[in-house]
């Protein structure tokens, strides 16, 4: 068998020809030509809701030729916060990470500006509420995009029958399905009287006084409706003001009508309170009602979600948005931005709202009257006023308008509920305020 030797001249010629062929060859677009994208989404409570996200992402990925991988991360035991902290430290991880309310500011240095995504989205979907701007904007830079999955208003969910019987309030008449609210008389004073009446009737309002978000959110909206701020927008401590004193006096009166074990409530306690039929009202998104629909239908058909009572400084409702952030160290930022635009399209948002049974809430003004909220039941229309369709409330978050990095600490250290509880348990008002002032001084670290 003869063996042909390759000469040096032949080798050089062959190499040159192959290189030329490779360079001049037409670009062949493969199945995943636009690269890979790794996404960390919040693991939804509602069964089947994750599938909607997966379908929407896959639909976009097929069109854009991007290979995607999705991790659904539970918010139980702060797993999302831990993931965000670990990825920000390691400067490595998902390209897109869904993060809870305060986290865009907490990791502002590590997040890609998303003005080029948000500005067209606002033109398309309508203005976003003030809380979204407060939590996701820094120095004119959009740090993240409001995510529909997981975002929620924690307004009152009342028992129609018990409110009528004990407080003489017809919540359906006050917030009729399909038309604007007639809630001028739904004030903090009315609320307090209703709380007292229901407590005397044996069905106290189920409002927590613990350190978890449901308790803090309600306290936050009450304080804001009195204009009470522990730290103002400039970062000055404003604990010892008349507004804070007024809010504290009101909160103390309300605490007297709440269940005695409310200081140890967590975010599940109020849900259980409503579902078991022990209370006339809780402050929660419709998840409690959804569970009641399955486990206690006789309770569910008496539930009505509606607006927050108004205080001297306005009607504030606790709004807790989730955000999608793109890490600045992400490997495929352009693809990430393109996906966020897709996930924020009106059709995608409608799908999120529909599969979550109305739980998920878009932050955009034009998308508060979707048919899911009008049709969900029983009773039909129970969720109509959940997204504040007539924009009669100021959607807010507890501890705002303090600079977010300070407010985040007021929020998670539950300073509002703690100071209220101290006052209710026997400390003088000035002692409780002095304690809160000391706490706020500690939150000023930079």
């Amino acid at each position, binding site marked *: 068998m003869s063996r042909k030797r390759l000469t040096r001249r032949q080798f050089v010629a062959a190499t040159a020809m192959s290189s030329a062929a490779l360079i001049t060859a037409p670009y062949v677009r493969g199945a995943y030509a636009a690269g890979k994208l790794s996404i960390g989404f919040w693991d939804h409570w509602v069964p089947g809701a994750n599938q909607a996200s997966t379908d929407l992402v896959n639909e976009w990925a097929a069109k854009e030729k991007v290979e995607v991988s999705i991790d659904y991360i539970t918010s139980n*035991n*702060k797993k999302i*916060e*831990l993931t965000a*902290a670990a990825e920000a*430290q390691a400067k490595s991880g998902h390209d897109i990470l869904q993060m809870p309310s*305060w*986290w865009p500011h*907490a990791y502002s*240095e590590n997040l890609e500006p998303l003005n080029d995504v948000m500005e067209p989205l606002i033109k398309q979907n309508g203005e976003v509420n003030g809380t979204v701007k407060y939590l996701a904007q820094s120095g004119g830079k959009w740090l993240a995009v409001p995510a529909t999955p997981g975002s929620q208003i924690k307004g009152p969910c009342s028992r129609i029958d018990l409110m009528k019987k004990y407080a003489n309030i017809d919540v359906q008449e006050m917030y009729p399905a399909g038309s604007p609210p007639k809630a001028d008389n739904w004030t903090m004073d009315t609320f307090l009287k209703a709380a007292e009446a229901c407590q005397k009737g044996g069905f106290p309002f189920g409002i927590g006084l*613990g*350190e*978890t978000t449901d308790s803090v959110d309600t306290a936050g909206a009450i304080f804001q409706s009195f204009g009470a701020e522990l730290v103002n927008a400039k970062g000055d401590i404003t604990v010892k003001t008349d507004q804070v004193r007024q809010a504290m006096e009101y909160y103390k009166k309300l605490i007297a009508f709440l*269940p*005695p*074990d*409310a*200081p*140890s*409530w*967590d975010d599940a*306690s109020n849900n*259980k*309170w409503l579902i*078991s039929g*022990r209370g006339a009202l809780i402050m929660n998104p419709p998840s409690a009602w959804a569970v009641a629909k399955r486990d206690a239908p006789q309770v569910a058909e008496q539930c009505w979600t509606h607006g927050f009572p108004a205080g001297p400084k306005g009607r504030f409702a606790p709004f807790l948005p989730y955000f999608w952030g793109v890490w600045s160290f992400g490997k495929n930022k352009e693809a990430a931005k393109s996906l966020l635009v897709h996930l924020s399209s009106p059709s995608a948002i409608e799908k999120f709202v529909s599969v979550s049974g109305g739980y998920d809430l878009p932050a955009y003004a034009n998308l508060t009257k979707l048919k899911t909220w009008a049709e969900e039941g029983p009773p039909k229309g129970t969720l109509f006023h959940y997204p504040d369709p007539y924009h009669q409330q100021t959607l807010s978050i507890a501890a705002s308008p303090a600079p977010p*990095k300070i407010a*985040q*600490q007021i929020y*998670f*250290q539950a300073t509002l509920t*703690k100071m209220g*509880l*101290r006052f209710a348990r026997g400390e003088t008002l000035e002692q409780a305020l002095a*304690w809160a002032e*000391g*706490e706020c001084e*500690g939150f000023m*670290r*930079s």
Partner: protein
Amino acid sequence: MADVVVERGRVARATGARKGSGLRNALGRKSTVAFFLTLPLILLIVLLVLYPAFYSLYLATLNKAMTKFVGLGNFTFLFKRETFWMVVKQSCIFAITAVIFKALIGFIVAHFVHNIPGKKQRKWRGMLLVPWVIPPAMSTLAWLWLFDPSYSAFNYTLSFFGVGPIPWLGETFWARFSVILVNVWYGAPFFLIMYLAALKSVPDQLYEAAAIDGANWWQKIWYVTLPMMRNIIAITTLFSLIVTFANFDIVRILTSGGPLDTTHLFATWAFQVGIQSSDIPLGACVSLFMVPILAVAAIFILRDVSKRGNEA
């Protein structure tokens, strides 16, 4: 001692051997083999314990934004915080009370189990170890349902006797009582098994001699059992103190530190400050504060153990 003898033997044999056999000798030594056998564990400890420990030391010296070095600034800041001193006090109350009760219950139950004959003893030993082998997060969830603010099974039972309802997790005293109770329930079997092993190693002759001398049961415990178990008591106490001080899951699941921060421990408060409030340097600082407290305890206890070891 055996190791030295072997090495000496090898050295004696190797005197006439050629120079290249040094490495073979080193590899053949028992201590070298032991080192290589423990190497995977050493590497794991370096990776999972030492590296995070030094990294948290580094983190504790940064400002909140983690952009500049502040030295001991975070520690001096902590010392001025009322809540921090409350956490120090609570951690000491929690750890010391829980360890005392765990040791006491473990000691008493170990005696009972020790006196149960043969086969039955095995069954009891198995049953009593159950709390220790269930993952604490899972068993604490069961406790949470028993203490549940609104639907407590304990309160339901107490109501038949006209007692309660007791705010198990809503009042400072009861909340502290509850978290300590669960910790004792979880940790007592560890003491039980260690003490049982120690009891079995006390020679019967000592008790026989004590009986001949007319010692009663209390004197037997005081003059025979306790001195013979001193080292094991010291070591288990130290070990349990470290683990109890660093406890996280029980408090996190039952009270999240409430009401009004009165059940926070170092670990739960560090989590709240570091992760939930996004102040990782301060969180690292809080968790590092356990080190000096535990180091002092370890020095005292281990010094005592080694002193008695030398005396023996």
